[in-house]
């Protein structure tokens, strides 16, 4: 059971990271963590370290790329950006997510009506 829960979470985190990079362009790990924190309004309790696990995973899949650059406060930092393949994957996963969310929403409504 425990395994399955984390699976869903993992996939979700990957999707969020991808979307963040898509929306905001190249970002470093700290920036991504801030953005997710900001958007989730503290609903999601996130260990920020897992962002790096996710980044590595995405990189291995070839969905994001990384390069070294200088951050806004003049620190050397690794910037991650979404790749062409990553864009495709994002579209696919977004659609997937919406379909599942839709189905689950319908199911939940059904229960309330019944």
């Amino acid at each position, binding site marked *: 059971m425990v395994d399955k829960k984390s699976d869903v979470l993992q996939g979700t985190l990957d999707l969020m990271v991808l979307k963040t990079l898509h929306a905001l362009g190249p970002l*470093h*790990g*700290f920036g991504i*963590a801030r953005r997710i924190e900001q958007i989730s309004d503290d609903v999601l309790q996130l*260990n*920020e*370290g*897992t962002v*790096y*696990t996710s980044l*590595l*995973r995405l*990189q*291995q*899949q*070839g969905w994001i790329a990384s390069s070294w650059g200088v951050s806004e406060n003049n*620190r050397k*930092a*690794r910037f991650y950006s979404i790749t062409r393949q990553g864009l495709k994957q994002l579209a696919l996963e977004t659609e997937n997510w919406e379909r599942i969310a839709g189905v689950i929403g319908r199911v939940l409504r059904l229960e309330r009506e019944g």
Partner: protein
Amino acid sequence: MRILREWAAKTQGLFMHGREDHELDAEIHDHLELLQERYRRQGMPAQDAAVAARRQFGNLTLLKERRRAQVRFLSPGEIWGDIRFGMRMILKKPGSNAAVVLALALGIGMNTAVFSFVNALLLRPPAGVRATGDLLEIWLHSRTSSGVQSYFPFTYPDYAYYRDHSRIFEGVLGFDGDGTRAIWNRSGEGQVIQGQLVSGNFFSLLGVNAALGRVISNADDQLGHPRAVVVLSHSFWQRQWGSDPAIVGRTLVLNGADFMVIGVAPAGFAGILVATEPDFWAPLTAQEQFTHDKDRLDSRHSNWLIVAGRMRIGVNAVQAQAEMHVFADRLAQEHPDSNKELDAIAYPAKLVPGPYRVYVRAFTGLFMAVFGLVLLIACTNAASLLLARAANRTREMAIRSALGAGRGRMIRQMLVESLLLSSIAGGAGVLLAWWIARLLLELVPPSLPITLEVPLDWRVLLFTVLVSVVTGLVFGMVPALRSARVDAAPALKEETRSAGVRKSRLRTVLLIGEIATCVVLLACATLCVRSLMHANSIDPGFDTRNIAIATLDPGTLGYSPQKVAAFYRQLMERVRALPNVTAASYTKHLPLGTSREQTTVGKDRSKESDLIPVDVFRVNPGYFATLGVRFLRGRDLTQKECDDEAAGAVVINEVLARKVWPGQDPVGQRIAFGGEKNTSEVVGVVKAGKYRSLGEEPIPVVFRGSLPPARTLVIRTSGDARPLLEAVRREVHVVDPMMVATDLQTIEEYMAFPLFPARTTGFLLGASGILAVALTAIGLFGVIAYVVSQRTHEIGVRMALGARRTDVMRLVMRQGLYVTVVGLGIGLAAACAAARLLSPLLYGIGANDPATLAGVAAGLTAVTMLACYLPARRAMQVDPAVALRYE
């Protein structure tokens, strides 16, 4: 695709993990600092801010660990840890682990030994030869017959045609397949040495250069004017000349003619034919010096050359085969009398000639299968033992899983342990294989001129490694999966006493399989051993005791017929005068050897089509008395009848008598030979014996005179034949110092040759049978003993509740009996099928011999019952008070 990418990343990780790790550390460090800074700005004290930042970031160690798993296959440290832990677990139970290792080592060792023969015969390319992959061997094949007899070596004219016309081959080489014996005149004394006649391009096509001097070239091998030159083998040069560098240019007197040594072949090179190790090489066209056969190079009927070609670059074997077909067809049209229905077949060049490979494959395949089964039994043993132990380690596994070990991690640990066991066994197996291979070579009869190299090279070692790993996985997988499927909570709460129904069912299946396999092996082994005993007791039709034999060939020295006759007459006189000699004679060849002469015979004036095929033995007077062959009618041949074919007298065996003159007395009748004008008179009839093989049906045979110069001397003595051998060697030397007797042996040694296949098979299968029974008994004993120890508590309860000792005994024995009976049933059925495959190897015994099967069943039942009885007795002696208190 996804997996592929991950693997790619991991492979990359192998090379750059150092830098990557460092970069990630820097990244994380920056991240933490930024978080800390933010908290500080919110007004937190520096220390609290650091803690808060760490909390928000999460488990750092876990992150790094996960990352490692993502970028790397396995860390060396982890594997090393597994191995160390595995070794500790193994050393904890040295006894039972030693038993497992020993069983596996025997299994792996036997398989490796057989494989080392497969390697030596079929896989290993000839040593010292360049690019063996481009070499093809060519054999003539008669379309009208089948089996190995349908393949022929080349005649010289055929060889010359292929050599001169081929576009596919860079060159075509030929050499005499039987080898050439020569008498080397070493300062007045003869010494027999082995030679090989080779074409001028032999060395250049094989890419072999001389270690000293030069090799034979095309210029040496010119038809009509060959050069009298020889190349010595490296070992011959070392042995006989003490590696004298001044050998090149010296002269050797071989068969009475001078040959100049032009070079020495490199060490290790022994040609491209298995089991031959020439002392020298000489040009093909110089063959007359060795064979004294003037016509051999022109003859279209003398098939004596093994031929091989080296393909040009960019040509494949299919194209080569096509060209060979074309050549064969063309020759068949040009020379219908000799080449009609003859095709040419190309084989990849290996040490064993192409046509024979199928037999070697079948023979070695049988043993691979048999010892594969032995290994399977050993695996089953190991698996059931590990299963039993896995049940004991439930608690350990539960703790591991509670502490967060993943399923994969636990399976890995268990597999590492079983692989450790199998690797140790593999190492021991290699040593065992080396020893077994030496032992098997000892079985080769001395009369077979075989020098077989059975090296443990990289192919054999690779095989052993593969077998060991597969073995480890096979016997380790089930226990590993089983132990990883542990439910932590109940296992930690209270160690459960019952072994569990599922687990014991799996063990039962394993045991049944083990016993069934054992039955198959044992039945086959018993059949072979019994047939071996039969073969030993088969009457070959002549005495197999008190006879000495030797072969002689004054023809090699180029003597005239008169000189040959004089030599044999003198020798016979001297041999007959030796002490204890009761009879002596000559024959062209002995029955049950490798030589054979055949012709067709019939009644006088019968049509050619009525003639029946017979085997011919050319003998001198006294042959029958010497070998102890009994006359049924008539008399022996006289010396005059033997020396002069025109005298026309023959002796036949009873089989021929019955076939040609059923119900009549053949003595005094005249017999006609196919292709001969004159008829001969039958002067005697002898009892039939075995002529080609011990297993044959009776064959019609004719005995007649006119022996060629190459003969076998047979001597009967009233005592032991062994001391006679040295005397014969001496007498030959006295009569003619240049002559040398070869293959001096007693008849018992001679008989090792026809019995060789049965003996080897019997030896190997006997060994496999004994191994199988021992392993099965150990396996059964181990499991039953384990079950008893697991059930001590239960047995105690039963006894406390009033069960008698005999009830307990019955309880334990019933389990053993059940597996035995089911295993026997399955095994006997399988054994019947397997034995049918063996039937061609069996002498005088049916494949489904009921006595054998019954004996195997009874014997195995007795052994398994004993294996169950010992633990059962221990169960009976359980003291209920002690067993219950132990709780």
